[in-house]
C-alpha cells in the first residue's frame, strides 16, 4: 500500500503543475479525493480572516517549493500547518512575515494581505511588517545577552517604551504572559542563553510578543523540547490565542489536534486539504491527508 502511494505520487508529479488550482477549490464532497488530484480540498476561507493568502508560489531558484497556495489565517485562533518533511510548511510560514526575503534566490509570487494590506507591496515596510507578525523559531534562539535585554530589544529598536520604567514594566508583562516571570524574575541580568531549552523557547515567545504583534508564527516550536516543556508551551499558545492569530508548524499530529482550531495539510508544495482541526483528523477528505494522519507515510 505504502509503496504504491509513493509511486503514484512521483509518477503524476509533473502533471500536477498543469492541473493546478485554476478552478475554484473543491467543496467538501462525500467521496474521498484520489491521490493524483492536487486541488485544495475544504473551505480555505474563514469568517474573520487576519491574513489572506491567494495563489502564493515560492521558488528557490528552479525549485518550485510552494505551488499556488490559497488560505486564510483566522483571527484569534491557532492554525496549524502539517505535512511530511520538505513539503514547504516552513517556506510558507516564512512568506507570512517575509523572512524569505533574506534567502538569496528565493522568489515569492501571489498575494498575501494582513488586514487587507498587501504585505509584498512596494510601499510596505518589511521592518514594520515583522513588528506586526512575530516569529518563534524551531531551535530556541535567544540573543546572547541578558534575559532583560532579550525582551527589551524589540521595544528598543521600534521605540515603543517611553522610558526605563515603562520598559521594565513591559519586560515584566511579556515574561508573565509567556509564563516565565516566576522562574527568572530574580535573574533578569543573567544570560538568556543560560536557561533550559524550554525556558529559552518561552523567552523567545516573550520576546516575540514584546512588540505587541498581531500574528505569531511558530515553526516547530516544541521539536527541541521535552514533553513537560512542550506541555507548557501548548498551554501558553492556548492563552495567547485570545489576543493573537497564531500559525504553528508542527510534526506532531497530537499537538496539532490539541492546540489548533484549523489545520492545513501540505504535500510536496501543494496545500492538499484545509479545514477545522476536528474534521481533518476525524474525517479527512483527501487520500493523502488520510494516509498522513493515519501514519501510513510521512
Amino acid at each position, binding site marked *: 500500500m505504502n509503496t504504491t502511494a509513493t509511486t503514484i505520487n512521483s509518477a503524476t508529479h509533473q502533471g500536477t503543475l498543469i492541473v493546478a488550482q485554476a478552478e475554484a477549490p473543491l467543496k467538501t464532497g462525500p467521496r474521498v479525493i484520489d491521490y493524483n488530484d492536487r486541488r485544495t480540498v475544504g473551505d480555505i476561507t474563514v469568517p474573520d480572516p487576519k491574513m489572506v493568502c491567494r495563489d502564493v508560489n515560492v521558488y528557490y531558484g528552479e525549485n518550485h517549493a510552494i505551488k499556488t497556495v490559497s488560505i486564510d489565517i483566522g483571527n484569534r485562533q491557532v492554525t496549524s500547518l502539517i505535512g511530511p518533511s520538505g513539503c514547504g510548511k516552513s517556506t510558507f510560514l516564512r512568506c507570512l*512575515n517575509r*523572512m524569505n526575503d*533574506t534567502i*538569496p*534566490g528565493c522568489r515569492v509570487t501571489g498575494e498575501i494581505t494582513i488586514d487587507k494590506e498587501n504585505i509584498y507591496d512596494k510601499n510596505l515596510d518589511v*521592518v*514594520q*511588517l*515583522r*513588528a506586526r507578525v*512575530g*516569529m518563534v*523559531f524551531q*531551535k530556541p*534562539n*535567544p*540573543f*546572547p545577552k541578558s534575559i532583560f535585554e532579550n525582551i527589551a*530589544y*524589540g521595544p528598543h*529598536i*521600534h521605540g515603543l517604551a517611553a522610558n526605563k520604567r515603562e520598559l521594565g514594566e513591559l519586560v515584566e508583562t511579556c515574561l508573565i504572559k509567556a509564563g516565565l516571570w516566576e522562574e527568572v524574575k530574580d535573574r533578569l541580568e543573567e544570560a538568556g*542563553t543560560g536557561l533550559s531549552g524550554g525556558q529559552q523557547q518561552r523567552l*523567545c515567545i516573550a*520576546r*516575540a510578543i514584546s*512588540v505587541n504583534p498581531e500574528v505569531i508564527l511558530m515553526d516547530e516550536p516544541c521539536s527541541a523540547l521535552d514533553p513537560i516543556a512542550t506541555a507548557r508551551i501548548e498551554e501558553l499558545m492556548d492563552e495567547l490565542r485570545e489576543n493573537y492569530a497564531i500559525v504553528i508548524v508542527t510534526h506532531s499530529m497530537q499537538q496539532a489536534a490539541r492546540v489548533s482550531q484549523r489545520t492545513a495539510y501540505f504535500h510536496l508544495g501543494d496545500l492538499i486539504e484545509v479545514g477545522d482541526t476536528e474534521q481533518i483528523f476525524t474525517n479527512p477528505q483527501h487520500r493523502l491527508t488520510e494516509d498522513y494522519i493515519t501514519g501510513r507515510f510521512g
Partner: protein
Amino acid sequence: MNNNTNPLARKDTTAIVRAGLQRRYAAEKRFKWYGLTAISIALLAVVLLFADILIKGLPTFWQTDIRLEIDFAPQIIDPDGRRNPDDLSLADYSALWKKSLRQLFPEVESREELRSLYALISSGSSLQLRDRVMANPALIGVTQNVDLLADDTVDTFFKGGVDRELPEAQRPLKDDQIAWLDKLKAEGKMETRFNTGFFTNGDSREAEQAGIGGALVGSIFTLLITLSLSFPIGVAAAIYLEEFAPYNRWTDIIEVNINNLAAVPSIVFGLLGLAVFINFMHLPRSAPLVGGLVLALMNLPIMIIASRAALKSVPPSIREAALGMGASKLQMVAHHVLPLAMPGMLTGSILAMAHALGESAPLLMIGMIAFIVDIPTSPFKPATVLPVQIYLWSTLPERAFVQRTSAAIILLLLFLAVMNATAIILRKRLERRW
C-alpha cells in the same frame, strides 16, 4: 532478509573482525609514532634556534663602563665664562676624558700608544659628557667620577669574547691595551650595568652606541598606521561582502581576487608602494607613513578574510532572531553579529599585525633600509623597522654587532609572542557561547 542470500550468514564474523584487529592497532600505533617523531623534530629545531639566539644575544643587555675621574675644566668647556649653551655644546669634551686617562697612565707617551689608550673608551663618551654639562652647567669647575661607555672591543673582552691566548695580530685588543684594562679592573674602575642605551639609542656605526630604539619607534609608527587603516577598511569590506553584497558574478570575482591578493608575495606590495606612494604621490621616502600604507595594503586581504570568517561563524539563528524582531539589516549587524564576530576579528587583526611586524621585504623597496641615527619623531621622518635593523646589523662583522643582531631578534620574538598571546587571551575572554 533471507539467510540463503546473505553471504555473511555462513561466516564467523566475530573471528574475522578479531583477526583484523591486530593489524588495525599496529597501524594506529605506527601513526602515533610518526606524529611524535615529527613533533620532536620540530621542537628540537625550535629549541636549538632559541638557545643559539639567547646565548648570542643576551650579553647585549649588559654594558661595560669605565669609571674615570673627570675634571670639568672651565678653560676647556667655557673659556670665556659666559655659559652660553651654543658655546657649551661646541666645546671639545673628548679633551676631558683623554686628560683623565693620561693622568691614570702617565707612562704612556707616544702618539701611537696614546691612540690605542684612547681607543678603550667609546667615542660616544664625549656626547655623554656634553649632555651632562648641558643638563647641569653647575658641573663646570667640579671634579666628578663618571661612568663612561667602554669601546665595544673592551665590552666584548670583559664578556669573555676575546681570547688572550691568540697571537696579538689576530686579537682586536693589543697586549698593552689588555694590560691597561687589567689595571683598570684591578682598581675597580670597570663596571657592568644594564644596557639601557640599547633600548633608547638609534643606530650607530659604533657598536657600543648602537641601539634598537630607532627601529622600535619606526616599527611602532608603521604598525599604528597599518592597524588604523587595515582594521576599519578590512572590517567594513568584510561586513559589506558578507552581509550586504548581492550574490552575483561581481562579488564572486571580488572574492576570488581577495583570496589571490592574500597570496601575492609581499615584495610586490613594496614595488606597488614605491610606484604609487613615492614616485607618484611623492610621499617621503623611508618614512613609516609609506611603510604603514604598504603593509596596510598587504594586510587588507588577510584582514578581510579573517573578518569574513568571523562573521560567517556567527550562527544564522541569531540573524533570524534579529530580523524576525523587525531589526533592519544594519541593526542586525551592529547589535548582534558584530559583537559576536569582534573577538574573531580582533584575533585575526592581531595575527595580521604580527605578520606585518616581521615583514621586511616590501619595506626595503620603499627605502626603509637606510642607515638612520636619529630616532624618528613622527611617521614622516625617515626610519627603519625591527626586522630591517636586524638585517642591517647581521651584515656587520664586529662581535658586538653579531650580539646586537641576536638581541634584536629576541626583542622581535618577544613582541610577536606578546601579540600572539594577546590574541589567544582575547579570544578566550570574549568568546561567548550561544
